């Protein structure tokens, strides 16, 4: 059985949570709560901690990786049905990351490039990594996190110009509470991508320390989203941020280091490409692994080929244009993801807690017994 180090799991969690918000969260929050995006992020801390607790609690009380553990706790029929639903939702996240990236790339970098070629260049390496096995994918994700993440964040800071005004994050009042809650929901959507830990956590070397790495990854996610949401606001103000398709890219376009290093947004593009590869590879793996679990297949790798072709086709068909993509990101996906990645696991954790006899210690984790 493949074993992951805790730092590798930390990298996986960071790469599943951060790249998508990096591209779209600033705009989504500006549209929803204007300059109060940072407040929504702070408001999402508690739900996030509860999610981390729920995932960890499910992990230590299950003997099989997700979605197999659903059968363990909910019975075979319900578990299989839920598992089947989860396969599609994991797949949806993978396809969604492709859709966002394709729109990002074709809006900002090479508008004339055929979308099929672009998708092939992203899907092919992920396909190869998945075929090589989990170890290859995770090692790549580890390298991407260490190299791409700091670069992408640094570029946002370099983009801060002399006109930056931190007081644009104020005033505190003047927002509808419902909007703020919706902002919290949007942020929590991306923190709920941490659900991959239920599938990958059992592969860890030291499952006892897992909670520390989960909290660290979540902490880094919070910090990153704060930067991602705040920098476009302090630079452009909420009105302009809300009409930009990809605010982070616009910040990087303004980068001017010491008056002679500029036009370096292509570095951001390369960091985003690797990040999207990470999200795609991890969620694609979880999809294939879920198929294996639900349908009792011997190896998940036989599903990589068919799902690759389908991912490419779906990425083209899922949204007709960027306007519709943002409608999906703003109004449809959050509800799907928060229900299946947030509420259901939380419910599951509570069910496990209630069903567990009081004198029983938490069970052994999958792959550890």
């Amino acid at each position, binding site marked *: 059985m493949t074993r992951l180090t805790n730092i590798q799991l930390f990298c996986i969690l960071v790469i599943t949570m951060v790249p998508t918000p990096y591209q779209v969260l600033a705009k989504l929050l500006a549209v929803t709560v204007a300059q109060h995006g940072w407040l929504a992020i702070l408001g999402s801390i508690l739900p996030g901690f509860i999610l981390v607790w729920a995932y960890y609690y499910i992990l230590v009380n299950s003997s099989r990786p997700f979605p197999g553990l659903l059968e363990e706790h909910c019975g075979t029929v319900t578990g299989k049905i839920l598992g089947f639903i989860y396969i599609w939702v994991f797949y949806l996240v993978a396809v969604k990351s492709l859709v966002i990236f394709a729109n990002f790339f074709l809006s900002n970098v090479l508008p004339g490039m055929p979308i099929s070629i672009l998708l092939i260049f992203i899907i092919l390496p992920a396909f190869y990594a998945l075929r090589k096995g989990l170890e290859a994918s995770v090692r790549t994700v580890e390298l991407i996190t260490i190299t791409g993440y700091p670069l992408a964040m640094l570029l946002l800071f370099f983009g801060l110009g002399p*006109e930056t005004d931190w007081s644009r994050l104020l*005033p505190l009042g003047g927002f509808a509470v419902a909007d703020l809650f919706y902002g919290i929901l949007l942020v929590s959507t991306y923190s709920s991508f941490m659900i991959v830990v239920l599938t990958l956590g059992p592969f860890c070397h030291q499952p006892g320390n897992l909670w520390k790495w989960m909290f660290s990854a979540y902490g880094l996610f919070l910090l990153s989203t704060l930067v991602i949401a705040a920098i476009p606001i302090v630079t452009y103000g909420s*009105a302009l941020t809300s009409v930009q398709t990809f605010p982070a890219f616009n910040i990087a376009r303004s980068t*001017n280091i010491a008056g002679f290093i500029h*036009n370096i947004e292509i570095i951001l593009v390369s960091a985003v490409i690797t990040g999207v590869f990470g999200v795609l590879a991890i969620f694609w793996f979880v999809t294939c692994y879920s198929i294996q679990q639900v349908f009792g297949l011997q190896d998940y790798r036989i599903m990589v080929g068919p799902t690759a072709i389908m991912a490419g086709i779906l990425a083209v068909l899922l949204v007709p244009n960027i306007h519709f993509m943002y409608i999906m990101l703003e109004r449809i996906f959050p509800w799907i993801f928060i229900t299946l990645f947030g509420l259901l696991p939380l419910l599951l954790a509570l069910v496990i807690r209630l069903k567990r006899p009081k004198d029983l210690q938490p069970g052994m984790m999958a792959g550890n017994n």
Partner: protein
Amino acid sequence: MRKMLLVWLLLSLLSLCLAGCYNRLELDDSVGVTGFGLDVEGEQKVFLVQVTSPSGKPEGGQTAKVDTLVLKEKAAGYAQAARQITLSFPRTPVWSLATTILLGEQLAREDLALVMDFVSRNRFIRPNMLLFLTAGTTPEEVMQLKTPPENHSLVALEKIIRGQQNYAEIYLPVTLREFRTKYATPGVEPVLPQVRIEENAGEKTLRIHGVAVFRERRLVGELDEIESRGLRFLDAGEMRGGLVTVNLSGNRQSGPLEEMVSMEIIRSRARCTPLINEDGSIEMLIDIEADGNLYEQTTTENLQTTENLPRLEQLTAAAIKEDAMACIKKAQLLGSDIFGWGEIISRKHPAVWRQLEADWPAHFSNLKVRAEARYSIRRAYLLDGPVPIKN
């Protein structure tokens, strides 16, 4: 076998990259762009582009002579006009090299909305490009002007505004990003440095002269040199450099020449605080803090004494306040909140702002302002007193 097939497939795909970049542009097929000009003529939008045109290969160690070429097209939209340029020009302009945008006065008087979408949506237009308004002239005339030693007037313009930042310190360069942000943010209006063509002894030269003031998407007036300096003093960020001339007689404009003293500003910063009075009226409290050096004196009196230094500090502070007040007065006259006071009120007193927002220009014009300026002398460069005069 399958592995071999996969490797072959990968190598085949990677070999596509050997042909070079997807959207490569050969040097011989392209031409550098120094900047654009945007204006309107009647119902047509005018797009101008200044390109570098190498006019021959250098010989025997000479450097290549580079001519300025200005291309002009008119259409219903700027993007359309820009693309029409390729109908008559054989090379592909490299738009991303452009550093300057000139807005025509006619366009600025008509409506900025005519141009804001084009400069914000187009990915070739970089957010850190510098913006200028052509006053009393057109973008085309400015672009055509010879500006030795620079080959291109738009490059010269960029160097002038950056250069004056270190010496004259009157005008603030405005980037597209800043202009766009102020354009879209309630409670603040954008400004632009103006460029004029002046004629001296039959020779035309470029000069940055005044600051264009906008209100609700339209050009409504301008600040002169003193008011522009005042605008600089009122900027919330830390300003570096500048020179203020004071007169020991107290009369800055027409005091005796031998009593003129030039005070250098090393740094200055303004704090603007809105004060809501009990009767609901708003007062803006402005506190300008600056420090600097004694730079030049014409009087033979020793100014570096315990008695004279505070006097000099007071005179300089008064001069700073005078410039700032002149700017405020002009902005209020034009009804344009170029200082972003509305934005400050909206952050500090959102409830008050909600009442004022609809008719902010009128409220701004009637705003009471209380300004204070403080100046501290730090050093006096190479002399510790006036140059001694014999006998």
